């Protein structure tokens, strides 16, 4: 009989240096789970056991995996630019080695954190469900390697390991150095454009809800793996509150105390420019920073992306506790209190 994974089960969280990984690890520890984290730098958490190392180091991975009941695999190379080899080494090979180590150590449950971009081909997603990962059509190194890695996870899922795949979409909130901080920084310096009409509906995920969803996913993992077909073990995770992208960005900027974005760029121009900038970035790299605009990003910002959340909510037995409105208020309070997003 499959049953829930409950405290004090032993859980390994990879990639706990990022906001999401760190937050989930901390929450699991608070709930009484026995948490180990695995990443190169310190997670800064004192309630967890920490194994330092790289996904590309098989011995380090084996050390971390040994004796666990479940793994929450979040570590990945996340970026819109960078060398292809780096993405492949960390995202594909790293994932494969992790599954091998889990198999070797007899760890039965793996929650693989994926990305909506693995199944996204630049067109509008309107109330979409989680389609299969498709490396052929994924754009950019990140999306392609994540798609390959998800297929690996899926294969392992049908070969003895309990696997759940979760794809959080556009996580934002206090502490988020990716989306949230960039929007606020650029809005503050008046460099934040709204592409096109700003009307496309986009679904996002407030950080607190993301943490809740992962905890729920971990708890329900063996049951979902036993009861759901392959396609039902892929979950898009969002707030389920699609909003016009322009309104969201304006809301985040406002929460960060910045002026409303007034710069408007036609979507087609942004896509073309994004492609050019991407090429230029690649030709002149390596860079420490991300390119200011990419074709992928331009597409993300000028087409609809929202998802059918019925299946996700049902199998996770979860629903978002914090609405977008409440999330924006939390963010505003955080920025006012700390002076920044992080």
């Amino acid at each position, binding site marked *: 009989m499959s049953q829930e994974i409950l405290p004090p089960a032993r859980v390994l969280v990879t990639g706990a240096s990022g906001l999401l990984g760190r937050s989930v690890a901390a929450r699991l520890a608070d709930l009484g789970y026995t948490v180990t984290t695995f990443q190169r730098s310190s997670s800064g958490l004192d309630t967890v056991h920490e194994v330092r190392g790289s996904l590309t180091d098989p011995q380090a991975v084996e050390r971390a995996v040994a004796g666990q009941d479940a793994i929450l695999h979040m570590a990945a190379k996340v970026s819109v630019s960078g060398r292809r080899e780096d993405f492949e080494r960390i995202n594909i090979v790293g994932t494969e080695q992790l599954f091998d180590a889990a198999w070797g150590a007899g760890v039965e449950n793996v929650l693989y954190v994926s990305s909506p971009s693995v199944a996204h081909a630049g067109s509008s997603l*309107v*109330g979409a469900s989680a389609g299969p990962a498709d490396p052929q059509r994924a754009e950019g190194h990140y999306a392609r390697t994540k798609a390959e890695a998800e297929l690996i996870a899926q294969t392992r899922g049908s070969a003895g390991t309990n696997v759940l795949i979760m794809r959080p979409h556009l996580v934002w909130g206090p502490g988020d150095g990716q989306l949230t901080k960039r929007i606020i920084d650029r809005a503050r310096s008046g460099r934040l454009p709204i592409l096109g*009409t700003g009307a496309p*509906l986009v679904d996002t995920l407030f950080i607190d809800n993301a943490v809740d969803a992962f905890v729920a996913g971990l708890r329900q993992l063996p049951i979902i793996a036993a009861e759901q077909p392959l396609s039902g073990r892929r979950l898009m995770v969002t707030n389920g509150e*699609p*909003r016009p992208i322009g309104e969201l960005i304006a*809301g985040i900027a406002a929460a960060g105390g910045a002026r409303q974005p007034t710069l408007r760029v036609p979507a087609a121009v942004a896509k073309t420019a994004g492609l050019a900038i991407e090429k230029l970035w690649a030709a002149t790299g390596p860079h420490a920073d991300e390119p200011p605009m990419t074709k992928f990003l331009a597409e993300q910002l000028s087409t609809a992306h929202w998802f059918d959340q*019925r299946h996700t909510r049902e199998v996770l037995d979860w629903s978002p506790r914090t609405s977008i409105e409440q999330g924006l208020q939390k963010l505003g309070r955080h920025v006012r209190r700390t002076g920044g997003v992080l």
Partner: protein
Amino acid sequence: MVSWPSPLTLWKPIPAAAARSPFAALRHTPLPGLDPEWSQLVSARTDDGDRGFHVLDTGPALQARGITPTGTILALHGNPTWSYMWRHVLRSSVEQARPGQAWRVIAPDQLDMGFSERLAHPDPPGPHATSYRGMEQRLNDLDGLMDALDVEIDKPLVTLGHDWGGVISLAWAVRHRNLVQAAMSLNTAVDHPHAEPVPTALRAAMTPGVLAGSTVLTDAFLRVTLSLAEGGLEPEVAAAYRAPYVSRLGRGGIGGFVADIPAAAEHPSREALERASSGLQQWEKPTLLVWGPKDPVFRDRYLNDLLERVPHADLHRFEGAGHLVSEDRDIAEVLFTWLQDQFGMTGPPDGTSPPPAEPPTRLHEQLEAMSLSWRRDSPAVVDMTAGPEGATLSWQQLNTQVDTLAAGLHRLGVRRGHRVSLLVQPGNSLTVVLYACLRLGAVAVVADAGLGIRGMTRAVRSARPNWVIGQRPGLVLARAMGWPGTRISMDPLSPRAARALGTVASVQRLLRGDETPALKELAHPEADDPAAILFTSGSTGPAKGVIYTHQRLGALVALLRHHLQVKPGSSLIAGFAPFALLGPAIGATSVTADMSVTKPATLTARAVAEAALTGEATMFFGSPAALRNVVATSAELTEQQRTALGRIRLVLSAGAPVHPDLLDQVAQLFPQAEIHTPYGMTEGLLQADIERKEVHRAMATGQPGVCVGRAVAGVRFALAPLDGLGRPAQQLLDPERAQGTLSELVVSAAHLKAGYDRLWLTDRQSRRDEKDDLLWHRTGDVGHIDEAGRVWIQGRLQHVITTAEGPVGPGVVETPVDALDAVARSAAVGVGPAGTQAIVVVVEPAPGQRLSLGSSPLAQPEVSRAVRAASRQAAVSAVLVVERLPTDIRHNSKIERTALAAWAEQVLAGQKVSAP
């Protein structure tokens, strides 16, 4: 002008060829929708020896599933199609088959057609060529084929046909009237009305010298026919239709068929055709006609001819469909539903209406009684649009005019059951004409100008009036658009004008005639005789004709008398002109206020007051638009006029719900009056009602939607709760059992419609509910009923938004949003897949407000915030702004939500689109 190659010089003999299996013969042409399992070759004995037929037959497929057919359908294609046209019927027959209810469909390719045997043709088709199949031979072919196919004749046998196959199938049914249990046909013609030319489209093909060229030597006739599918055929489907006729050698039969049209009296097939067409007049078996009215060949007049021969036939006329109606619409559904009703175990539901609150009154009862009472010289109808004094008819005058006109119309040939289209503006004349028709038992067809010219044309054509009574503009339109019916003008016309408009008489002249004794001998119409046909708004597809019988209108009249507490001396002001028609029936004086009859919004407070003074009115009937203008112009009232309004004791506003603020303003103008806003529809004019004070009490409960009050006497409500995809339950529940649940509202009452006109399937579907053995009407409105029995409306069924949290009626969002000061009107629509839709609110700014964000259709952030805050009961994803919400022509208030949803979906997917 196309010049065809001369057949005499180009004709080369066509050799005979054996029947083929399409699946073996065609290598590169897929036959979408056709199952090889159905296809077989059959040899049958015919007039000239054994011939090979290709037949589609679902018998073997049913057998393979272990199901024994309970009946057989013989389906016959026309020219130049083949049995492929029945593929949806074939598929349905297999899919729907259940033990005890299964139809075997046999669809042969006629000889020389489709994949059946090809005959040798030494000469081109024409009157003298003998190698082509004539009608009689084709009937004999069917005899042989049915013998060869081992059809069980102890089970029901039903024919089905289309085009020339329709004639042959009906002729075959008549020939075997003891064997055939029912007949069904799509567009066809069994005779050609005398003195009418052959349809232009066909005449060209039939011209000697052109015939062979257009049908055999080239594929012109084939191509033209396939092009008649409304909206075009899928390329693969068109290719499948063409497949047997790609070569000239395959097309002999096409030409032969055209040559076999017996237009001339001496044509060899004339006799067979006449046997069939006259035989149909004695045909008493169940008959179903399924018609595509946009057929350039088999136009409505052929349908009318069929209906005259087979008056008991059921008819479903698919508005907007054409010659290839089986491609344009799902005909399998109507065919099998009908067959189930004829031959199924249960038969159609036959519920009755609940007893009326009051016994139905005959429609002339009040008029006659008043004309004999001491009030006979007091005004019955007063038309203030005719001048400051108004045009008045006393009860006695009105009664006399009605009788005189009825007699005159009867002399002219108008008979009980005839349909009379009324193209007359409301006023005393219309009242006289309407009651004269009712007296005669003629059926008044009322298609109002709000449908637009196209909508009216469709409505009038579908209702097929025998007579048209109109004023000049209506007659000009009737003439120009070719509407059916013999025309009668209201006013006398000069001989020249009468010729130009094609009128045969005038109402004014008929009114000068005697009230002949003939009328006294003329029986009053029976309770179940149809009295009137009204049209639905057409806001959801083409307008539907709704039939009322005398009984049902009588029940409405009795209900109104009861509900409005009409007493002798009651008098109503019609602030919406058609209400004036009610007065004589309910026995109240009706005064039409001075206003533009087509623009109720022009009604002023002074006009109402003047009408009140003239007619000593006690009631005022208006529309929301009229009320708004009456309030807006109330400052002009004199003291005397105010006093007159103060005597009114009942104000009634019909149409859309009215905002409580407006009701309060109306109450100040009419201090003694109860202010009612009834709820109803074309199919049932009064179902619920609410008074102003109750509106306030209901609003205070904070329930979603608009409260329309409680069921009026004699009306029962039931609920069909919606599921997650917004579909109403099949099973109806009593309101107590689904309290507060979002549902489709369903009503039953003695004054509901008798049926839909010439829409068999629509009518059948509308009466599918059998709860408590009652006859119900699904209103298409969604809402809920609360614990106090109050009915709340949240919008139309097809506008329900299906969110992941459940279905949401648009009214839940719109009612509070409309109350925002910056918003003139709003519409809530869903975008995204059913079951997980996002709610989008599209707002129209109040005058002087600017709500959009620059050139973007997005609302400004504070507007979005306000809309979200107002819509507490449903989460709004996006707020868009348009200068003007698209509304349908008839009801300026009804927003085109379907078009709006499509627009919003594009905008919110990031596509570039212009205003909706």
